[in-house]
């Protein structure tokens, strides 16, 4: 369909009030590829960029100095090791890094909105969620150094493996949540041991069929799953306007579930709304969709070059909306933290980065025999035969065999 057909012509009768009327882009906007995906949304915000806190009537949360300091600490620490990951890639110690810069609030808010018994299904940028689930940052490194495909035990951490094929994990989450229903683990209320599931994906993933199917299955089975979309506005080089005419959270209504847009740079809003949504789900009122509206402040990955497709001005403007700075300002203004606190967090962050770096540099490549492990659970004749043949082949080289240097070439792809 040609772009001019997407919207009513100027001569057409005015559209009725409502979703379409409020957000239909003008022909000029369509021609520019710019849509109203950022406009007309009722964004939930508790902590303004200036650090002013305003309670939200629908999403009550007990805000204490301790909570704010904890959230601040979380965000500073994950930003610090995220930046260290970037540096390690630049220095050839990692083949690729996927930065989360700018999305600290969206991730820490969501991660701290979960309870221990809940399950998370991430995409591959969710280092902050991993942090909240108790995954040590060093356990993320194998993926990016090329020593494993996943470094943590997903069952113990209740944090699924990273999923690189866009959108796949949403269906896996929907199925897991169906299991929570079948197991009778839903319906006990917020403080019970009832469970909920949350899945993370980006704005680009919303174009994938799996996201649609996941929402169909989740609503069909009244499953306790929160669809948490971090809309960082860029799918590598493609702006969200290439994929959506309306704010993404509005899609929820079409499936018959509540949908909300939160200020993804406001950790209190992300926390309050996620906790509410998870508790709704565990109480049997799921699923729920949350769109955390944020901005990808760095490249898609270290293999990417954002200068080719977006303006530095926009990134600069988003710096004024920084998720960490507004918490710092609030803490200072309200007298909830002193300089010793901030210095202490900075020292802790630097120590974490140092440990992260030391661990990365010391990582040895796995032995060739491990390539054949875990393909199957039950014994498998062909895999075993190939392992034996390959090891015998390597033995033919004597002591020089099979101890190459770790790969450090720049990787590609997403």
């Amino acid at each position, binding site marked *: 369909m040609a772009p001019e057909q997407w919207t009513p012509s100027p001569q057409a009768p005015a559209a009725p009030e409502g979703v379409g009327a409020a957000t239909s882009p003008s022909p000029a906007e369509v021609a520019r590829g710019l849509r109203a995906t950022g406009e007309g949304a009722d964004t939930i915000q508790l902590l303004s960029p200036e650090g002013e806190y305003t309670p939200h009537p629908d999403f009550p949360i007990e805000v204490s100095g301790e909570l704010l300091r904890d959230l601040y600490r979380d965000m500073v620490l994950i930003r610090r090791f995220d930046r260290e990951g970037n540096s390690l890639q630049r220095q050839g110690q990692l083949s690729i890094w996927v930065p989360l810069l700018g999305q600290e609030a969206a991730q820490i808010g969501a991660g701290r909105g979960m309870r221990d018994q809940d399950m998370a299904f991430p995409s591959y940028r969710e280092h902050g969620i991993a942090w909240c689930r108790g995954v040590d940052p060093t356990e993320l490194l194998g993926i990016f150094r090329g020593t494993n*495909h996943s470094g943590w035990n997903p069952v113990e951490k209740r944090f699924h*493996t990273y999923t690189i094929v866009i959108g796949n994990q949403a*269906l896996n989450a929907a*199925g897991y949540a169906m299991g929570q229903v079948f197991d009778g683990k839903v319906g006990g209320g917020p403080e019970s041991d009832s469970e909920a599931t949350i899945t993370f994906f980006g704005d680009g993933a919303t174009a994938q*069929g799996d996201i649609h*199917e996941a929402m169909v299955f989740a609503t069909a089975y009244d499953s306790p799953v929160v669809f948490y979309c971090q809309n960082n506005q860029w799918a590598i080089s493609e702006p969200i306007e290439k994929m959506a005419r309306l704010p993404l959270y509005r899609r929820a209504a079409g499936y018959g579930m509540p949908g909300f847009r939160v200020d993804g740079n406001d950790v209190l809003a992300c926390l309050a709304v996620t906790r509410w949504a998870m508790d709704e789900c565990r109480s049997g009122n799921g699923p729920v969709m949350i769109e955390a509206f944020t901005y990808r402040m760095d490249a898609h990955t270290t293999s990417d070059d954002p200068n080719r497709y977006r303006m530095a001005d926009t990134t600069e403007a988003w710096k004024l909306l920084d998720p960490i700075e507004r918490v710092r300002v609030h803490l200072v203004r309200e007298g909830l933290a002193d300089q010793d606190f901030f210095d202490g967090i900075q020292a802790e962050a630097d120590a974490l980065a140092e440990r992260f770096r030391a661990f990365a540099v010391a990582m040895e490549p796995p032995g060739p025999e491990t390539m054949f492990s875990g393909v199957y659970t039950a014994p*498998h004749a062909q895999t075993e035969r190939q392992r034996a043949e390959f090891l015998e082949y390597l033995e033919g080289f004597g002591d020089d065999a099979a101890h190459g240097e770790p790969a450090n070439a720049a990787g590609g792809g997403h």
Partner: protein
Amino acid sequence: MSTATGTTATSSQSVTLAKALNMGLRAAMEADDKVLVMGEDVGKLGGVFRITDALQKDFGEHRVLDTPLAESGIIGTAVGLALRGYRPVCEIQFDGFVFPGFDQIISQVAKLTYRSRGAYQMPLTIRIPYGGGIGAVEHHAESPEAFFCHIAGLRVVACANPADAYWMIQEAIACPDPVVFFEPKRRYWEKGELDTSVDPGTTFSSVLRSSSNNSAVTLIGFGATMPTVFAAAAAAAEDGIACDVVDLRSLSPLDLGPVLESVQHTGRAVVVSEAPGEVSLASEVAARITEEAFYSLAAPVQRVTGFDVPYPPSKLEEEYLPDLDKVLHAVDRSLAY
């Protein structure tokens, strides 16, 4: 090596392959309440082929799920259920409809155990009615087994008779690894003897169905082609040419023990499958025989397969499919060396 024997036990009964699958599913569901059946129309209708007939009535809607009409959704949610400790049995309605779910099968089902370094198991069974010869429209007669055999992390099997159907579906469901389970839909209504009282042990292995000391050729088939292979062996015997017959059953991993043992005697092999021949399971069998029994061979391994064309309109499928004459022709080609 096991050889087929006509079952004469008193507990034996004559059932269709479809009924045997239904009985096998029922037995698996009775044995383990974590076994779920899920797919399109598998509940009240009992599936378009009635393989799941009456299971929902007897086990309930949470054990037999009429899912939304979305194959990626069926497989993708089954993955999540498997992570939660369930053993989902997914029905793909027809072979040609598996591809919307292909991504989940390749990217998640096959790889999650490996990616998680063994922390996850993926006890998923994906049932696919496959193969041609039923006069159907497009996408209802394909043989896509090679796609799945190519993917490490999956096990791929095909049943060819009611007894195997009954035992193999239970072995697939009990397996801690994902199993793609091919059912020869053309043979659903063919009857065979089934003795449910005698557990045959593993069925994920190839089996020598018939052999003789003077066999000249080894005929190899699986699933839908087995009746054709048997018919060809019988016809060849009338012409004085004895043939060994092997039913592969396990397509991945291939179990070529019985094949190689037979070929060492016969020196000749003919592989029969419905899929297009290029880069097919038949190709793999031929290559492996060449690698592992080269000095036993008196002739190149012959392949009898579908043509390298899309599955044709049904009025042409008899021309497309391997049949008795094509197999005999291949036997003649082999003997001509």
